[in-house]
């Protein structure tokens, strides 16, 4: 028998937790992006697990699209990071606090 789906789901949940902790804790924009990728992957894992459990190809199709969107997102996001870096010479997000108050 295969390993029950629940184990993979727990794994995905933990991966998601690690990713979000990193997102909240690290200051560099690039590292934060990577943590977002971790979270997306956790979601992908969950989708695939359910796809197997429910025998529905739709789960895998969703993962497909998630990957496409993640790629597009990274493209534009890194472009923004580059633009900001040109002005400030630092990727720390703590410096982008002009919307305060």
């Amino acid at each position, binding site marked *: 028998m295969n390993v029950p789906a629940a184990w993979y789901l727990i794994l995905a949940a933990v991966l998601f937790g690690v990713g979000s902790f990193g997102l909240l804790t690290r200051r560099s924009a690039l590292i934060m992006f990577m943590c977002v990728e971790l979270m997306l992957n956790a979601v992908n894992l969950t989708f695939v697990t359910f796809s197997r459990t429910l025998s*529905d190809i739709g789960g895998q199709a969703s993962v497909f699209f998630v990957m496409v969107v993640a790629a597009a997102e990274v493209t534009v996001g890194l472009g923004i990071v580059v633009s900001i870096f040109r002005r400030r010479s630092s990727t720390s997000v703590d410096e982008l606090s002009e919307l305060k108050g």
Partner: protein
Amino acid sequence: MIGATYALASILVFVTAALLILVGAVGVITLKNPVHSALSLIMTLFGVAVAFVAQGADFLAAVEIIVYAGAIVVLFLFVIMFLGVDRKEHVHVEPLVGQRAFAAVGVVVTVGGLITLMARSHWVTGAMSVSTKGVALASGQDNVKQLGTAVFTTYLFAFEATAVLLVIAVVGAVLLARRERALQSEEVEVEA
């Protein structure tokens, strides 16, 4: 769940995948050098690909490696090198008060809650999804065929939409990168 016996192979595969994923993830969030973090990310992605294969999503495992590990992480490395931020970040100092504590609490609660939800809900009935009309999930080559059919028929609109999204993303990236140079060249033309 734990009491039952499972095939040894699948347990091993699971453990491998889990180790790769978790070690890589922890590496991403703790390593000081961004380049090292990127390499850890690759390790995680490999682990995820292994998990995909174990679940029978062969095509997706391939795509994961090619697109995610091969293109996206490489793009990350490009930018890291381009910006020259491969210096170390002061990880041990946290300027925002209470951020780490609250973050830890929030994350633990969320993950714990998700796991509890999963434990307590009764979704493991073994029933198959209705939308596929009882067709079982194929594996191997048939997986590619089945996935392709689904994407190009049932989810065609989403497919087209993501195509448009990619075009937009490219245009956006080009614009973002170009802006300053265009202004500079205009100023030069005015002076001359």
